[in-house]
């Protein structure tokens, strides 16, 4: 397939995944922000949302103070923020239109329909307590795009490039959530705080859609080291780093066998996957969670670059 087409498919998925992630951050943050301050401490939840989204500095160039209104506006709608949900969906649709022929009709209509809905939305209607309606809509859009691709695309290179975009972006997002909250995630048997930490942990799990899953996997109350274990090493959780890399390796192997050759991207992905497979969480804490995550985010970026260099 055309390199440009593969490139557009890859980024189309990344932008959709990112919009979904931002919606989750907004959702968890607005949940946290209505808790009494006694439970949230003095850290501003809205500042932390910006760090998780990786755009605190960009925000401070435009606004003075992170508040519910300014952060929602910035993350959801701002035209000045190239990574706002609106801009992500617009860019996704732009990419989709450029590769119309590589998408199935169902996928195209889902993306185009979402874009049309977005044009009609009035931001003033959505602010404040009604933000949840908007975030629900964004999550729904990403489900439909994902689902229509899954159900209708041919299993060929176009599909694998599109899936790669989802997984690389997802791995990055999960790692960032963990990294912003790493100081709350402590190794086994450390003294655990009270209600404040508890609500922060549930927030982390919510933002990766894993609160209920946690109970099924560990069958015990929330423990910070188990949360880290789940999000990093548990292959059963679709948003864990290990699960993302299992899928990334599969996609790259499919591409490799379809094209009849393996390259740097395959090797790098396999290395990362193997090291995740062989890790135990105690060891991760020994290295330092923050150091581990920083290194992971850098590796993940390098893999993205290797894919682009090899194919796009």
């Amino acid at each position: 397939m055309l390199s440009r087409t593969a490139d557009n498919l890859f980024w189309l998925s990344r932008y959709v995944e990112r919009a979904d992630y931002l919606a989750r951050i907004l959702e968890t943050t607005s949940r946290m922000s209505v808790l009494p301050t006694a439970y949230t401490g003095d850290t501003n939840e809205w500042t932390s949302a910006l760090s998780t989204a990786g755009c605190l500095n960009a925000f401070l160039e435009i606004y003075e103070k992170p508040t519910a209104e300014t952060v929602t506006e910035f993350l959801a709608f701002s035209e000045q923020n190239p990574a706002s949900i609106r801009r992500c969906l617009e860019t996704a649709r732009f990419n989709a239109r450029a590769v119309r022929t590589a998408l199935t009709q169902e996928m195209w209509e889902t993306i185009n329909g979402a874009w049309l809905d977005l044009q009609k939305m009035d931001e003033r209607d959505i602010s404040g307590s009604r933000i949840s309606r908007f975030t629900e809509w964004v999550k729904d859009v990403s489900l439909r795009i994902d689902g229509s691709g899954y159900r209708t695309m041919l299993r060929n290179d176009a599909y694998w490039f599109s899936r790669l975009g989802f997984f690389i972006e997802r791995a990055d997002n999960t790692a960032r959530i963990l990294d912003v909250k790493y100081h709350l995630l402590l190794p086994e048997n450390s003294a655990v705080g009270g209600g404040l930490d508890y609500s922060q942990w549930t927030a982390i799990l919510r933002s990766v859609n894993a609160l209920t899953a946690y109970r099924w996997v560990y069958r015990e109350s929330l423990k910070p080291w188990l949360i880290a274990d789940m999000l990093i090493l548990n292959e059963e959780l679709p948003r864990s780093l290990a699960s993302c890399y299992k899928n990334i390796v599969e996609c790259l192997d499919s591409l490799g066998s379809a094209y009849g050759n393996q390259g740097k991207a395959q090797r790098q992905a396999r290395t990362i996957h193997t090291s995740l497979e062989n890790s135990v969480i105690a060891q991760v804490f020994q290295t330092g969670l923050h150091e581990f995550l920083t290194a992971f985010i850098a590796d993940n970026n390098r893999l993205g670059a290797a894919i682009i260099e090899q194919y796009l």
Partner: protein
Amino acid sequence: MAFDEMYAADGSVRPPYAGVAKWLASVSPDQLERRRLEAELFYRRGGITFAVYGDNQGEERIIPFDIIPRVLSSAEWNKLSKGLEQRVRALNMYLADIYGKQSVIKAGLVPEDLVLQNPAYRPEMAGVAVPHGVYVHIAGIDIVRIDADDFYVLEDNARTPSGVSYMLGGREICFRLMADLYGAHRVAPVDNYPDELVSMLRSVAPRNAGDMPTVALLTPGQFNSAYYEHSFLADKMGVELVEGRDLFVSEDCVYKRTTEGPRKVDVIYRRVDDDFIDPEAFRADSMLGVPGLFGAYTAGNVTLANAVGTGAADDKAIYTYMPEIVRFFLDEEPILKNVPTWRCRDPKDLSYVLDHLPELVVKEVHGSGGYGMLVGPQSTTSEIEDFRARLKANPETYIAQPTLALSTCPSFVASGVAPRHVDLRPFVLTGADGIKTVPGGLTRVAMREGSLVVNSSQGGGTKDTWVIDL
């Protein structure tokens, strides 16, 4: 009084429209409105849009679709399609001649300066052997009716005619929303057009291309007004939609850049104008083209459809010579008529035109899209005087025609069902193995009462066109 395709002068319904008339009598305006809205939604959701250049409000617009089909009997169509075939054969022979022996000039049939000074004439093409001798692979011939008997050619489009996606989209809508009416007729299919198109394109591949030549559709990109059509056709043909930057030329062969490295391309259905296809051969500032493409083409390693320089056959000045061109090359009487046309370059014609401006339609020889034209009867005195000055300054760039009473068809508009003026653009495919025309074409309709301008850029809409067995 314009010729109405549904009602005869005595108020009786013409035979092809019997089913439509019966159906119209049975549906309420509410039902029609609901179907109209559904059709609009179909276009919006599908992103079946076009862009109007110089329009600031919203860059993507949809073309209004009129849900009442236009009907032709198969007998009418058979006559029309024979005429189309004849016309396109003549266009191809004319092009082969002006880039070859130039016998039309030697015979004094067409003035030399009209051929050679024509801005669309490409001297670089002189003596180039195009693959399989075909120049105009895809032609869109604009047809109007003014009475029951004859079809007139309003314009030949031999460069990159567009609109076929609206023909196919309209049929899809009729199929979905008008199943009751559609099912009651035996409508000749058009949905095989993309298959016919791609097999035609394969048939004209260079002889060194092998058994399964690679076809690609070259688009200027997603900001082009017809981008939807480009992506639609590529998708339906199952060929790659490429932009200039996806292709490169090496040793006079064309390659596309793929995830598996370079892959050779044999046939390019290009929807990029001559000027922009190759910055090394034509406009150096073109960002849309492929450097070296024209060299690969003249070396015979890639087929371009349509060929370079076909515009020399379709402007309005050459149009006036088409009946003579048909007789000259085919030794047959033209089946399709030409609209009587005054050539303003001729002083006698010019003085007639200047004396009769309020009743004539005056068009720029090289214009298209309904821009730069005067519709005398619908213009104010000051508009006419304005135009008179322009015409006098550059008479050779204009032609004039009587204001034709284009035929009307029943259409669903705000006030209900009412007659509106229409034209027809059938699409004619010419390959190595002959000429094919899918039955029907794109009917364009002027949705405003009394208006004769059907161009989508000027508020025109489209209709599905049915060729039926009575």
